[in-house]
């Protein structure tokens, strides 16, 4: 994939790794329509041995990211996440999803 410059429209997918202390990671790949920006689904990959088991999206008004009501339990291997999992939480486009913080937790 060609490198983009600042100001370019970012093309699908949006990939985010969250490594643990050993470099094992949860990697989130969000796919979206480049024209409409609508999220079409995502895959979450948890490396063998990764100590993180949850994907934490958003930050509650009170408490830690661990207390967010939008989190996935992530089993080892690849998990497919349907677009409806995002749209049901109000995240229809990739830009909407990016406006909340994302991390991984135990």
């Amino acid at each position, binding site marked *: 994939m060609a490198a983009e410059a600042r100001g370019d429209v970012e093309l699908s997918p949006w990939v985010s790794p969250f*490594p*643990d202390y050993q470099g094992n990671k949860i990697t989130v790949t969000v796919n979206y329509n480049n024209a409409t920006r609508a999220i079409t689904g995502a895959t979450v990959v948890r490396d063998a041995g990764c100590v993180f088991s949850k994907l934490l999206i958003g930050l509650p008004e009170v408490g830690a990211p661990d207390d967010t009501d939008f989190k996935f339990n992530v089993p080892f291997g690849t998990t497919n996440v349907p677009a409806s999992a995002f749209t049901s939480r109000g995240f229809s486009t990739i830009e909407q999803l990016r406006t*909340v913080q994302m991390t991984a937790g135990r």
Partner: protein
Amino acid sequence: MAFGDADASTPAPVKASVAGKSVTTASFTPPAGAVLYAHAFHDTAGGNLTSTSQITDSLGLTWTLHEVASKADDGTGYNDGHQALWTATATGVAMTVTTTGTNTNNPAGLYVRVVVGADTTTPVDTHQDGTSDNAIVSQGLTTVTDGARGVVMATDWNLAANMTAGANQTAVWADGIGAPDMRVYVGIQNAVPSPAGSVTMSTATPTTGNQNNWIAYAMRPAAGGATNLSPGNAAVSAAGNAATLSASPAAGNAAAAVAANAATLRGSLAATHGAVSAAANPAALTSSLGASSGAVAVGAFDASVTSGSTLTTGGAAVSIGASSGTLTSSLTASGAAVGVGASSAALTSSISSTFAAVSVGAFDATVTGGATALNVGGAIISVGAFDATLTGGTVPAPETPVTGGWQGLLDILNDIRDTHAEQVAATPTACPRCGEPLYSTHGALRCRFDGWTTGPVTL
């Protein structure tokens, strides 16, 4: 675990593009006394000269700012983007950490690395910042503390691509934060350097289209922990990792690992010291052993003394496990290279006096090299199934002839055969059946008890 490795409690990086210009880590519980190295990243508007950031946490710890790389801090010669390095000392209580930008754009990122064994008073040994366009990140550092380990954090404001690690380094986190995006990177030296000196922290790619700022620094190990042990102290790991000692311990100290990894000593052992691994990996000594010192591996691997090291008096390179005890330097007095396991005890230098290269297992005990010599009382012994070999040098002449073996057994057999023949040919004096003395009668010898005679009786 080498110094600077992330503790298992280290939280995942976090990123966002929120109106509050902040991100918060998930909850984590670092060990008390661990140093928290917070790498904070914030996007900035083009030409922003007023960006700042602040680290806070849920416990109200005191955070120290060590370095900022931004136009606001370093002038217009730097690229856009803001990054800062902070540290605090953990209390052992569950916590979260937050970075908040001021006069920044919304995108933010944070990576907090929990490091055990760092100097809590001066956790950053040295630091430098820099900037470049259309080039890699590259920053030279001169560390002042033996074992200080280099880290580089960087931003690319132009979104060229994720950065990759430079030579002998590993990328810890390489990602884009928020929207519009900004690339962020944290990389670390693969190994703990020793001694202190010059290191270069860098990336390998991208090399074009990028607009970098960076902070390079070295984490400083705690005095009295990994370095500069006072008498009676030890760098010990009883778990699954290594104990590493980077400096010279005082008397009675040891670098020991009781579990599955190596005990490594980079400095000198003075007297009665040991670099010991009781488990499955090597005990390595790259310096000198003084009196009664040992590089010992009880597990399945080698005990080695290398690189010109010397065992001076009573020293030993010993492996009781399945592999070799290896000594590539000199044994000067009462020294031994011993392997009790299934492999070899190898000595590639001289044995000068009352020394031994011994293997009790199934393989060879060898002494090699043209200059090799067994002098007074020296021995090379293999009790197992294979050879004891001396190549080169001299063996002291034996003081008495060696006898025994098959020839000796044959001689005994021949003696018995000759004695039997002589006895058969000789005239008997007693009855062979009851032992009664024989008497002579009619030209023959006769037993008066049971009637045995030597031949026909002439009447």
